[in-house]
């Protein structure tokens, strides 16, 4: 697979911006470049999206290509599939991932299977963007992390950018990908700032990033959890001289086994940290895959650190108890390292 462009192309100028704007950059860039690309979703046009991601697109590209929709998630995705079959490159926004089960059938049974079931005749190049992340005040219908629930369904690609530069580069890859791509955008990261190269570059789908090099323990994570994992790694270094290697998946499907296994083969210890449920989902797949491949190298079990198996609660203390925090990550790491 092509080498990812981790940084700006030497030539390109770099702008500092928030992750949210990195996504918008990708949409603007590709809409200008490719007439087939259009955006639709609830409140994405006049209002610029519930989180402002699509702000300004209506003014720049007009109402034919930037469309507010009725509250019809299954219809939105279904229309996107039809438009894609007929040659367009739709990008839809589903306001938050708790709503994905409403369009589950269209995504997993149709978009994801169409290329296969038409004998390779009809690809379905759609991008479904949605927000994930558990926070106080969201509650059981507004604050889920179901990104892992899509992994068992073949035919989907799933990305979760954590830096503004990756957000732009991964989105550009997603829009140009002939397959349906789900993009999970973390509530916790929309505001995070970072440098974003101008112009055209892509971050390939299917490639994880080593965010921190270390020899004692590999922590695999994705999305908003990266912030807590990085802090925990700092603390472990300061307090105990423990060198943690952090792998940011960036792509959840297909998984970058090569990068993950290479790291664990080196550190001999692996921990998966995810904001999603501790039962099933992403943490389970990663733990199972790693021990299957590196059983004899491992010095301890692959440890899963995920959200307690509850609906996302409304009240702050309940959310804090449910979602993995820096302390829990740190404690689990020490337990695994037997210190």
């Amino acid at each position, binding site marked *: 697979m092509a080498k990812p462009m981790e940084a700006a192309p030497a030539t390109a100028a770099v702008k500092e911006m928030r992750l949210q704007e990195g996504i918008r950059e990708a949409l603007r860039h590709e809409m200008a470049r490719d007439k087939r690309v259009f955006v639709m979703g*609830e*409140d994405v046009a*006049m*209002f610029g999206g*519930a989180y402002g991601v699509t702000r300004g697109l209506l003014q720049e590209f007009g109402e034919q290509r930037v469309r*507010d*929709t*009725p*509250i*019809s998630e*299954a*219809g939105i995705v279904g229309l996107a599939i039809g438009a894609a079959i007929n040659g367009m490159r739709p990008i839809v926004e589903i306001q938050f991932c*708790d*709503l994905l089960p*409403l369009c589950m059938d269209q995504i997993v049974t149709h978009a994801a299977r169409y290329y296969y079931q038409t004998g390779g005749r009809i690809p379905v190049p759609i991008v479904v963007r949605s927000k994930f992340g558990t926070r*106080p*005040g*969201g*509650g*059981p*219908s*507004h604050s889920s992390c179901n990104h892992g629930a899509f992994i068992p369904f073949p035919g989907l690609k799933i990305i979760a950018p954590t830096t503004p530069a990756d957000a732009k580069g991964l989105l550009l890859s997603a829009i140009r990908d002939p397959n349906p791509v789900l993009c999970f955008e973390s509530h916790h990261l929309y505001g995070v700032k970072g440098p974003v190269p101008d112009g055209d570059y892509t971050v390939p789908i299917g490639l994880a990033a080593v965010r921190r090099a270390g020899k004692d323990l590999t922590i695999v994570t994705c999305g908003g959890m990266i912030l807590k994992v990085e802090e925990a790694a700092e603390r472990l270094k300061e307090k105990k001289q423990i060198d943690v290697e952090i792998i940011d998946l960036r792509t959840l499907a297909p998984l970058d086994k090569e990068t993950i296994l290479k790291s664990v083969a080196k550190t001999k210890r692996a921990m998966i940290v995810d904001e999603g449920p501790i039962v099933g989902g992403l943490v389970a797949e990663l733990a199972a895959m790693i021990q299957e491949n590196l059983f004899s190298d491992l010095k301890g079990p692959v440890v899963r650190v995920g959200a*307690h*198996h*509850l*609906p996302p*609660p*409304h*009240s*702050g*203390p*309940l959310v*804090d*108890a*449910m979602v993995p925090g820096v302390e829990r990550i740190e404690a689990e790491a020490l337990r695994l390292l037997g210190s």
Partner: protein
Amino acid sequence: MLNTAKRKEMLRMMIKVRAFEEKLNDLYQKKAMFGNPHSYRGQEAIAVGVCSALEKEDLIASYHRGTGHIVAKGADLYRLMCECLGKLDGYSKGRGGKMHMGDLSFGFLGNTGTVGATVPFATGAALAAKIRRSREVAVGFMGDGAMNQGVVHEAMNFAGLWKLPVIYVIENNLYAMTVSMERSVAIKQLAERAAAYGFEGKSIDGNDAELVLDETQRAAEKARQGGGATLLECMTYRWDGHFGGEPGTGYRAREEIEEWKKRCPIMGLKQKLIAAGELTEAEYEKISAAVYAELEAVAARAVAAALPAAEAELDSVYAREAAHG
């Protein structure tokens, strides 16, 4: 026509509904609540008109903009306020927040933040009544935007097909978040859709509490007689932004907002009562002051109430005892 006592009680209840919203917004501004309020101000006549027409055993299902319905159906304000603030004394122990509640002790089937999702609950509750021949009627409240959700279509088709004792109340405040009705559907009135399901649909002034009560009573009577479902589209307007922190002016003209504020449901009923000599300004002030004072007390208690203990709730997801005893 309604007697004075009932009319005054409706007026008092509308003030209560509004006072709750205003106090909650106040606490939100002070960062005392988790999440955002969805203000019901401007729509009080619907919740109060509908709930005043129902009997104790009747049931309602609500949605994200649900505090008005919950208050009007008879919730305890302290427990409701506690839930908004994520306190252990809240109806849902702080787990759900105001968008995720339910308590059959006052006929509240529940609400959720997923637009349209509770409409089949009201429909299914009506099915239960039909199967066991019990008297209760179920009301499904929803916003105009919910009419474009597939499951709402499916539920209404069931109601028409099986002649279920359910009343669908659309609170058409002309906008679904920032998207106006003209940009959501290609029809003039959502009530027209009832014909697609084989039951009666009617579009009425949702800011006239007495009218809403009358129509609800008719629909409930019909339902109890086995006449099946009714759809009531109540035309109204949300005074505030979609939720706390969203001014609601980016996609709505100030004139439009002002226009609608002139049609205040509370002022409307108040003037009627005064004109009919059933109420005096002084009396009104007294009622209003009492309600706002009550809210102050409720809020103070709720703010002081305890948050849920972090770990305690961790295996609260499965019901243990056999359901319903």
